[in-house]
């Protein structure tokens, strides 16, 4: 079959480029409706308090105020939550963190709404609070949820007291294996809360029609999670709520679950008018979600010849006031803690603690950047103690070919070995490390080289696709997957075009809309290209089958003798002249026989994660998680021994993505993830002062700028061809971030010989370590 159309593998620009470069793209804050009201939120000043009552009299009296919603407008029985139904639409009966939304006001202008919000009086009974996860797990600590055990849960979370969930995964016999280890490394690590900082603050706009049906526009990563969360928390039948999507200004996990949608929909229902709510940057920092702070106790053992033998890890996650995605993050971090190495004896267990802080949820990497910061440093420490080169030790233990992942899941494509070789070569690793011995101290700035590897999944839960051929032979693709900037609209269009051998311009992709789109769990877990891509391929195959059925009747020949031809034609094999354009077939289907040609597909990712014969798993939220992508990363690190400040002049990041549907979009993910990882490693930290977030502003919370971009940042694509993936493709969205903090920590150790076990590796923290190690005066 001649491949005239090379849609897959082409770096075509994003389909929505024109509107983004001309400023015509409409994000949630750009949507506007005639007579639209503006909303403002009321936030709790307390970390833990019972709400005894509200006094809305002064606020309602303000001219221009149209409606106010409080906890009294919610029903105690209706709760939402991805894993544990522990969260009301907004505070009801109790507040559980400083900044939690307590009420909202709708008014003619935003200024009036904000003024009225300040006039809302709430009668609080202040209660003791606990904000440290380890303290929250001690007996007698104040309970964040009085009745946590009673909540509906979608898996055996073991929720009780301040334990939100607990999980244990084990393989082999770690306890017995320590005796055979010649070298054992053990440390405690701590990682910080990181803010997503998508530059677009969260927002939503809700319209109510005459019959009381609500159309909700919001910045989201899944219209179906918005629908589920709003309907569950407000007790609405899903038929009452239609969720649609404007352009989304990135998410990184912040917009996967609910943010302001529940309170805004309740407000619009009460006002019976269109209302828009856009959070300020400070409100976005204080009310939504952030990356989980981890406390990690990890132990790794190896034989003298460098064979890794045993690993034990215990995780304590700060879950914040509500479960959100915490059980998923815990389970996944434990599954990924080993890294891409064959370690026969592993015991991985952990807990998520409820605390009186904002909820912690999904954030690019989903727990792996945290746990990799510990695991990849321990691999380096073992190499150091055994006198082995860090890459050589890794090479002796790498998973290759079809080595199964920890807990037994099959791996069908593994390009890690070429990834490691590529970055080793590109960085001049061997020469650079050798030179280090002779490098000695050259002035205040010391150079070091760090390596780290990681993996990530692509999969999880349900996805669908509908491909409908229009009368002119072009097609409309509808998957319900939200493009938050990563380019999924473009990638899925390329997959559909390649499958039907038509030009991408012949494919239109529909905006995600719960009224019209097939279900898609969400743009999260690096899943859309793989999971939605497979559905597109299947749906397109169904269209091809129907096209050939029609053509066989039109050309009076057997279906088996027909072939797709590039450019939107079906032809008789071997007879170039004998063919029909899609338009002719579709015309017949619409106007003569058979009906419009529609292909559809729907599935849930189905590969089991745990092989009960190999591993024991308790409290693992998902039974089928995903197929594996792999990465290796080398960084050149410069440590200023005068100030402790760390800089990354050069970095080389290789990722095995199975097949790059759009190489430029793939390198974009690798580069973007690296720089976001740089912030996680060196400068970003949400700081709490007691129970209050101390730096909820861009003045005080600092992400990398152009100046922090390494002079050399090379992204390499390795294609190992995933047999189950669409045209061999698998995931790339998060993996580029997983190994960054670990590689930099290893680079710092190589440069100045100190191990940093806490993030971020700020100048202060590194200088303290230098002073304690006697390296710096």
């Amino acid at each position, binding site marked *: 079959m001649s491949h005239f159309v090379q849609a897959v593998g082409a*770096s075509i*620009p*994003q389909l*929505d*480029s*024109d*509107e*983004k*470069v*001309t*400023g*015509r*793209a*409409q*994000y949630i*804050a*750009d949507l*506007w409706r005639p007579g639209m009201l503006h909303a403002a939120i009321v936030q709790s000043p307390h970390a833990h308090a019972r709400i005894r009552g509200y006094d809305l009299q002064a606020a309602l009296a303000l001219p221009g105020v149209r409606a106010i919603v409080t906890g009294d407008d919610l029903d105690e029985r209706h709760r939402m939550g991805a894993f544990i139904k522990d969260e009301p639409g907004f505070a009801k009966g109790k507040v559980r963190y400083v900044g939690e939304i307590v009420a909202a006001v709708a008014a003619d202008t935003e200024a009036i709404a904000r003024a009225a919000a300040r006039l809302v009086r709430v009668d609080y009974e202040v209660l003791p609070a606990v904000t440290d996860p380890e303290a929250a797990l001690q007996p007698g600590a104040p309970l964040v949820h009085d009745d946590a055990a009673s909540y509906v849960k979608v898996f055996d979370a073991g929720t009780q007291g301040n334990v939100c969930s607990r999980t244990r995964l084990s393989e082999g016999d770690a306890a017995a294996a320590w005796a055979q280890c010649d070298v054992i490394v053990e440390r405690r690590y701590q990682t910080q809360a990181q803010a*997503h*900082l*998508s*530059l*677009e*603050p969260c927002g939503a706009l809700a319209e109510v029609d005459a019959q009381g049906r609500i159309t909700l526009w919001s910045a989201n990563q899944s219209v179906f999670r918005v629908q589920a969360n709003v309907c569950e928390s407000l007790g609405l039948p899903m038929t009452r709520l239609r969720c649609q999507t404007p*352009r*989304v*200004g*990135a998410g*990184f996990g912040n917009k996967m679950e609910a943010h302001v949608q529940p309170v805004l929909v309740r407000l619009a229902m009460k006002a019976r008018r269109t209302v828009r709510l*856009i959070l*300020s*940057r400070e409100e976005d920092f204080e009310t939504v979600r952030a990356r989980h702070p981890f406390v990690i106790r990890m132990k790794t053992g190896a034989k003298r010849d460098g064979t890794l033998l045993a690993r034990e890890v215990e995780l304590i996650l700060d879950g914040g006031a509500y479960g959100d995605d915490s059980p998923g993050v815990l389970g996944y971090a434990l599954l990924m803690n080993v890294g891409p190495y064959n370690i026969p004896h592993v015991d991985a267990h952990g807990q998520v603690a409820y605390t009186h802080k904002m909820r912690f949820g999904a954030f690019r990497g989903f727990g792996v950047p945290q746990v990799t910061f510990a695991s990849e440093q321990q691999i380096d420490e073992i190499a150091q103690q055994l006198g082995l080169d860090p890459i050589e030790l890794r090479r002796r233990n790498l998973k290759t070919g079809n080595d199964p992942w920890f807990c037994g899941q099959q791996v069908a494509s593994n390009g890690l070995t070429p990834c490691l070789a590529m970055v080793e070569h590109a960085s001049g690793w061997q020469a650079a490390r050798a030179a280090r011995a002779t490098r000695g101290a050259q002035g205040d700035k010391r150079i070091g080289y760090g390596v780290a590897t990681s993996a990530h999944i692509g999969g999880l839960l349900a996805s669908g696709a509908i491909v409908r051929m229009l009368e002119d032979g072009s097609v409309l693709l509808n998957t319900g997957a939200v493009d*938050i*900037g*990563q*380019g999924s609209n473009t990638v899925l269009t390329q997959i559909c075009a390649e499958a039907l051998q038509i030009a991408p311009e012949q494919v239109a992709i529909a905006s995600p809309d719960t009224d019209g789109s097939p279900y898609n769990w969400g743009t999260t877990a690096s899943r859309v290209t793989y999971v939605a891509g497979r559905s597109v391929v299947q749906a397109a195959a169904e269209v091809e089958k129907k096209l050939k059925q029609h053509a066989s009747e039109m050309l009076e020949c057997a279906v088996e003798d027909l072939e797709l031809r590039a450019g939107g034609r079906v032809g008789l094999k071997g007879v170039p002249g004998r063919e029909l354009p899609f338009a002719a077939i579709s015309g017949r289907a619409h106007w003569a026989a058979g009906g419009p040609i529609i292909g559809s597909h729907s599935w849930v990712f189905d590969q089991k994660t745990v092989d009960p014969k190999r591993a024991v798993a308790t409290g693992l939220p998902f039974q089928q998680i995903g197929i594996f992508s792999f990465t290796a990363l080398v960084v050149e690190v410069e440590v200023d021994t005068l100030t402790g400040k760390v800089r990354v002049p050069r970095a080389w990041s290789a990722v095995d993505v199975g097949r790059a549907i759009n190489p*430029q*979009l793939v*390198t*974009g993910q690798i*580069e*973007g*993830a*690296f*720089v*976001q990882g740089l912030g996680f490693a060196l400068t970003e930290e949400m700081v709490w002062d007691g129970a209050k977030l101390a730096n909820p*502003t*861009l*003045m005080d919370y600092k*992400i*990398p*700028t*152009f*100046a922090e*971009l390494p002079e050399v*940042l090379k992204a390499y694509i390795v294609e190992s061809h995933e047999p189950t993936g669409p045209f061999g493709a698998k995931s790339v969205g998060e993996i580029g971030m997983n190994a960054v903090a670990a590689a930099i920590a290893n680079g710092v150790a190589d440069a100045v010989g100190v191990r940093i076990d806490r993030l971020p590796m700020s100048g202060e923290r590194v200088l303290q370590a230098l002073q304690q190690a006697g390296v710096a005066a």
Partner: protein
Amino acid sequence: MKLELQINGEAAAVEAGLHDTLLTVLRDQLQLNAAKRGCNQGVCGVCTVNVDGWPARACLSLAHGCEGAQVRTLEGLNDTPRMQALQRAFTEAGAFQCGFCTPGMLVAAEALLAREPAPDAAAVKQALSGNLCRCTGYLKIVEAVLAAAAVLRQEAAA
């Protein structure tokens, strides 16, 4: 209070209170939505507009302070050759993902190329040091601005 501002080469009558910023007036009264609100404190750069030839923060410029100034937003620069070269280069290089920071980046880059037809990578990073991006990791943006500069220099020489 009634104000007359010069927006994209045209007089625009607007209503502005003492504390109203140029960003609020552009977005809420003139429906010019290319300039976005990301932090309202002048740090993120998504509100960058061109005031009298220099990039400026629309969120930190009071509407009253802009009387008599030539304000240009991306909407007003869309059909200028320099901006079109930048738009093509950004599109071909994949210099944006979500696009929320792109209007601000383009306005700042256009002002740079107006002043410096042949900037090096360091000059581009310096000129855009006030524009944050969380998606791309900045590399492709630098490449796109350099590429646009090269194309413009060729066209100028031709």
